[in-house]
């Protein structure tokens, strides 16, 4: 198992490097620069800015220095747009926010999604099944940029229960709507995958055997059927977890959480080079780590994979 993990880690490093180089190239190909604004800047002013941010150097040198600063100092450099902040600070400030609501959204989506999926499968074609399928289809067809305003309309404007936005250091009433808005679609997918996978397992021979030898129904489900049924769910949960803890553009912008999700789009629109790379690398590293965890879990659930 250790060598399995080490092997995966060895692949992760070149993967990240490829990611950095590709992001860098794509970013530089895009027209415009971090310093283009509605007001064109005089040439001298631009030259000073380029010199200050090292943009006057050859591209290959910029790339090398950038990678070196990350490897040697773990320094992603200053933001080109938010000039009294560094990318490290932007991540340090925003990531805990998305980590918080993303974690709760994940727990919520996984718990409710798996629960609904199992019940729907076990009680196939009953009212519980129809209800679960109905809810999941509903949650899936309403994207979060539609769901968020609906939530605000109901909970803020009509019921006056929750504030319409802000974060307030993560007080519970500020987290509720971001969690629901972020988790709805994932919850629906988890429920659907669990249901179909569970149905398949329930129709397999070893379950028939378990039932035939007279085991009580709940034991068949929890002890024998659940573990294999969760296999496809687990492989889905890995990337979902990473996606959730890095937040969502819609949630961050709509609810003004100050989370890191907004930067994935904002930094690209602003051509904020260092921030684009910083958040891309963060997401890339987390995705690689997430997939690794999934692989380990897989190997644990299904011994076939280890060999």
């Amino acid at each position, binding site marked *: 198992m250790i060598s399995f993990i080490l092997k995966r880690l060895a692949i992760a490093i070149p993967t990240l490097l490829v990611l950095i180089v590709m992001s860098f190239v794509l970013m530089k190909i*895009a*027209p*415009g*620069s971090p*310093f*283009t*604004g*509605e*007001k*064109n*800047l*005089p*040439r*001298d*002013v631009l030259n*000073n*800015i380029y*010199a*200050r*941010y090292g943009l006057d150097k050859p591209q290959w040198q910029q790339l090398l220095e950038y990678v070196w600063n990350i490897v040697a100092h773990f320094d992603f450099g*200053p933001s080109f*747009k*938010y*000039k*009294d*902040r560094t990318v490290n600070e*932007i991540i340090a*400030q*925003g990531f805990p926010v998305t980590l918080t609501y993303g974690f709760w959204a994940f727990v919520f989506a996984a718990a409710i999604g798996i629960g609904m999926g199992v019940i729907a499968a076990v009680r196939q074609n009953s009212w519980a099944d129809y209800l679960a399928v109905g809810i999941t289809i509903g949650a899936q067809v309403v994207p979060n940029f539609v769901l968020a*305003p609906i939530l*605000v*309309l109901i909970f*803020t*404007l009509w019921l*006056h229960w929750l*504030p*319409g*936005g*802000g*974060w307030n250091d993560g007080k519970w009433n500020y987290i509720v709507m971001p969690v629901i808005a972020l988790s709805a679609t994932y919850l629906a997918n988890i429920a659907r995958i669990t249901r179909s996978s569970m149905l398949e397992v329930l129709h397999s021979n070893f379950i028939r055997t378990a039932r035939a030898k007279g085991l009580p129904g709940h034991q068949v489900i929890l002890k024998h059927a659940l573990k294999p049924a969760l296999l496809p769910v687990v492989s889905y949960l890995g990337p979902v977890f990473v996606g959730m803890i890095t937040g969502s553009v819609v949630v*961050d*912008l*709509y609810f*003004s*959480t*100050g*989370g890191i999700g*907004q930067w994935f789009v*904002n930094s690209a*629109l*602003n*051509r904020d080079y260092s921030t684009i790379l910083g958040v891309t690398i963060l997401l890339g590293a987390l995705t690689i780590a997430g997939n690794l965890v999934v692989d380990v879990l897989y190997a644990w659930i299904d011994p076939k994979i280890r060999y």
Partner: protein
Amino acid sequence: MKLRAILGAGAVAFALMGSTAFTVPAVAAQVPDGTKLAADQTFNYRVLDNINSLDPDIVEDVDTSYVVGNLFEGLYNEDAKGNPVPGAAESYDVNKDNTVFTFHLRDAVWSNGDPVKASDFVYSWRRAVDPKTASNYSYFPGLVGVKNADDIVAGKLPPDQLGVKAIDDKTLEVDLNKSVPYFVRATAHATLFPIPQSVVEKFGNDWTKPENIVGNGAYVLAENKPGERVTLKRNHKYWDDAHTVIETLNFLTINDENQGVTRYLSGEVDQTDVPAGQYPQMKQQYPNEAHSVPQLCTYYFTFNMTDKQPVEALKDVRVRQALSLAIDRDVIVNNVLQGGQIPAYFFTPPATADFKAPDLDYAKMSQADRDAKAKQLLADAGYGPDKPVSFTYIYNTSEAHKKIATVVSQMLKEKLGVDMQLQDMEFATLLDKRHQADYEVARDAWCGDYNEASTFEGLMASDSSQNDSHYSNADVDKWLKESATSEDPNQQYLQVEQQVAKDVPIIPIYFYTKVFLQKTNIGGWPYDNVEQVWYGKDLYKTAG
């Protein structure tokens, strides 16, 4: 000597008499007698984006400059009408030519208790133009004439050669390289604020962090949560703190305009912008809360006037004139935008201080007459149904820009048979294309840097870096040069506007208005300040 009467007729009369001192009363929250104030004096203001940088030498966007304007105070502030009133300075003297300004600082302290000295201004101004600081706004001191500023930015002179010096702790002398009667006005701009030298030197780039920052404004920074909010608290060490009423200022980042309205309606913000097209409905629903006030900005279409421009028809001035005539600005303003905007037939907004709106012929015609003339011009140029004009119009992706583009393309199609293709793109790409002159016709807009017509007219100069059309006319250049020293620059501005209306390098569409919702219990708001500069210290919240 150029007279732009920015200080009002009285002050100008004094200026004519030679070196004279000016003292005007300062402004603070002016609460009418008998007003019952609210117990909670918190003002929640919606901002569109993240607060960019709290360093006065670096700040570049409007919302951030409101935050900075409450944390720091320049030599002069703006009053409710946009006129200069004493801030960190009590008074000033000026020489006959308006080239040497001497400011007398009042006894005031920084929020850490240190006295505000003339040297803090010198330090800040030099730092603003220092190539090492690399500020976007490093061009500003040069723009308003501070001696040697441009050469320092260009690296030709060291920063200590800037035309500003501290005569003593309380006296600041500014040397200008041209006559700038409106210079006092410019001192309300963040780039010319003071910064505390000892603090900046101690903390370096981290000096604007909430735990380090020290200011001389009416408020101090309590919290800075990018993407969520910035919170300021009243500064009890501020020289005029006795007159401050608002205790807390919250700048809440709300990116979506509609969500801004929702949070306004739920009581979370006291003021927010009205989304495009929703003003009539808001005005009807909340007649006392919906406001529309003039803003110093012009929306226009710009033609690529360089030889790189591929469409032959657009090189014919008659075609450009026809296109300009056929666009019905009233329809755009009244039916599309619906926010009280003003149709534009010339470039400088009529609300600009002391600007006399030019009386242009085509502005006085009826739309039917304009359409007829447009058809005639197009026919004269040899274009018509069998030889239609066809070009591409580029704009940055946004609902309002799209609506305007669509309406205009329909007008041109129906009236002139012109085929205007629309192409939207993200903002950075549009800016790049405009800058590279890689377009045919593009959306453009300009907001004044200061409240004087030259900030607009100057864009028509062939050497202006903001001249996106790359329009070049020797007469226009000459008039603009003359206007700088003219007794009545409106004469030259009229000539420029007439020439521009004739050559049509741009099609002015409308003058902006600021359209917003504001709770009725907010007092002291400067509705008449066309630059929308406001200070928390001038506001108050009434009870009920």
